[in-house]
């Protein structure tokens, strides 16, 4: 999932006319226009007898006529598969890029951040469940926005990128791809904030239109994924490797959930895997869990646990390790792995100082990987 979209925040933006639109994320009496809007989906096979098999994500849902896939936003109508969310924007905000979080991508810039309804997982701790776990017709105030409208909106807001975020962009694949292509033509970057649950072929096609990708790696065990997310870990790891191979800027977030994925063994396994598969230069963010949705019985992650995660990651050799959802500068500052000086100093989502020269530490010239301009 992406970062929290507060309804209050969206309404404030609306009131201020900041983006001319706001999110509408409530399970309530909503219009049905979204469900009526249909755009033929990519990546599916017709199986005969009006059944289809979706080939977008590893779930590969077999969907009968008049039914929808697990995501709730793709529907079989007489043997043809349609996305119901193309052009149906359910959330729109201007966020700091650090909120995604992407720390090595245009620091200090903002991203026009958008989402539709739907997700191909069902995480029990989802912070945006009112959008991600809803069907499009259940969302109030859905905005009909064509892909071509986004680059202009981004420019007017001074945003250097468009972020596909909040819910799960994989499920609005066609919409995202069309926006990203329009954005690229207009000189606006695109970033995907995703759970990485997507098959290789669509990911490869999509990557050509993206500039950075953040993947939420929720655990290293299938058991965790099955129990708490209704997914599996293997395809997520495959996607992370694929993104690296495709040369797209990649950052990884690991939400540390007390007692469920925070053991020393689990963290060591995570860090070892990252080092072995995508290298030590990929930023890793350990995020603090907050109880919500269907996981309200667990406490927030203790700060000490996050510190322990960071120690393990550094001991494993990972160069850029951050702590998310915690106060202070140090956990979110980029430190040069060679000279130890702060090269991007932050406080929360705010960038205080950038000490880079041509993508390298200005003090010792050590290259700092990322997209800096």
């Amino acid at each position: 999932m992406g970062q929290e979209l507060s309804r209050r925040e969206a309404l404030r933006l609306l009131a201020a006319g900041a983006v001319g639109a706001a999110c509408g994320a409530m399970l309530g009496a909503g219009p049905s226009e979204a469900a009526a809007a249909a755009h033929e989906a990519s990546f599916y096979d017709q199986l005969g007898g009006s059944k289809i098999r979706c080939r977008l994500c590893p779930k590969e849902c077999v969907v009968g006529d008049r039914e929808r896939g697990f995501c709730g936003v793709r529907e079989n109508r007489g043997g043809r598969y349609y996305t119901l969310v193309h052009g149906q924007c359910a959330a729109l905000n201007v966020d700091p890029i650090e909120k995604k979080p992407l720390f090595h991508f245009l620091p200090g810039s903002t991203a026009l951040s958008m989402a539709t309804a739907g997700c191909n997982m069902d995480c029990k701790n989802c912070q945006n469940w009112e959008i991600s776990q809803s069907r499009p017709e259940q969302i109030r105030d859905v905005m009909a926005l064509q892909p071509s409208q986004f680059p202009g909106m981004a420019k007017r807001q001074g945003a250097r990128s468009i972020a596909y975020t909040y819910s799960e962009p994989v499920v609005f694949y066609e919409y995202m791809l069309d926006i990203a292509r329009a954005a690229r033509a207009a000189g606006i970057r695109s970033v995907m904030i995703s759970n990485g649950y997507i098959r290789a072929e669509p990911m490869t096609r999509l990557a050509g239109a993206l500039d950075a990708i953040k993947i939420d790696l929720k655990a290293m065990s299938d058991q965790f994924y099955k129990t708490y997310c209704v997914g599996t870990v293997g395809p997520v790891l495959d996607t992370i490797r694929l993104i690296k191979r495709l040369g797209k800027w990649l950052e990884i977030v690991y939400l540390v959930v007390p007692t469920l994925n925070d053991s020393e063994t689990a963290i060591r396994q995570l860090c070892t895997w990252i080092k072995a598969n995508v290298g030590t230069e990929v930023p890793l963010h350990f995020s603090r869990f907050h109880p919500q949705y269907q996981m309200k019985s667990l406490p927030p992650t203790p700060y000490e646990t996050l510190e322990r995660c960071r120690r393990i990651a550094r001991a494993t050799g990972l160069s850029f390790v951050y702590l998310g959802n915690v106060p202070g500068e140090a956990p979110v500052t980029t430190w040069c792995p060679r000279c130890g000086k702060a090269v991007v100093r932050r406080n929360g989502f705010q960038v205080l100082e950038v000490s880079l020269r041509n993508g390298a530490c200005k003090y010792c010239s050590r290259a700092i990987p990322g997209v800096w301009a």
Partner: protein
Amino acid sequence: MGSRRRFLQVVGGAGLALAGCRARERETGAAAQSTPTSATSAPPVQSDRVVIVRDPSAVRGTTISADKVAAMVDRAMAELTPAAQAKAAWEALFRPDDVVAVKVNCLAGPPLSSHPEVATAVARALAEHVGTRPANILVYDRDGGELQAAGFDRSGGAAYVCRGTDEVGYDAEPTTVGSAGSCYSRIISEQATALVNVPVLKDHDLAGLSGALKNHFGSIHNPNKLHTDHCTPYVVDVNCAPFIKDKHRLVVYDGLLACYDGGPGYKPTTTVPYGAIMVAVDPVAADVVAFEIIERLRKEHGLPPIAGSEREPKYLRVAADAEHGLGTGDRNRIDVREIALG
């Protein structure tokens, strides 16, 4: 007249919660053939009975005879009681001040939705026998547009009020029961005190049967999340939510048409006029009998059985087990009465 609680303990015993308890007794061999008599002296309703009334003349092409459907519902309800009195059956199951939500199923579009004539028959019987006001009879499904398309009267002048959950809303927070975490239609979580389940007699591509239990996937906001593993155990968990388990009173199966393959969408080649109304207080028993009909139709049309295949509705066994107690899954313990009219 006893207290509300007393009423639910006694008469409401025909409902799901106590039906489940009795089902467990039956599984262990204890005799339990009828619900207790209420303090209002209403005769008992046979909770282990499934009544099928057939009248092929009720369906003529796409035309449904409302009068014949009403007669079928009336006859079926009467057969639920030892004294064969429809009024007694309705009185045993509902109070005059109940707000009765009637869950129809419009997913397949007009050809294979619950027929408005069935909902009207239920609403008129509630008004006549129980004294329920039309404003307290809430015919609902997930989407108002789908109800409209299926032909339900949304003018406000009908024997019932017809609303989609999209017009009323879902709970603001999910309720988690077992493995299913869902927001329920506010029509059943906040407004209704009693439920009538009006499913369509049809096959389901994944679940094997789209019947009474599965019909409540249309009462939650996220049915798409619950189709994994052929909907087992999710169908059961959804029906175990208190909004359903504690309020359920009656199943009125719409078998005027039957789809024996390719559901839940409408498949003209595998949908036949069946001319049946089936009633039961036990939704599991009703589904077991419905599945038997689907299997019989498949055999008649040269199709392999669903039983034994991947999509056998295993959720029926789970629903009937001691942990969930939603009803009787053992066909041998279900008292099926078949009546021919017309």
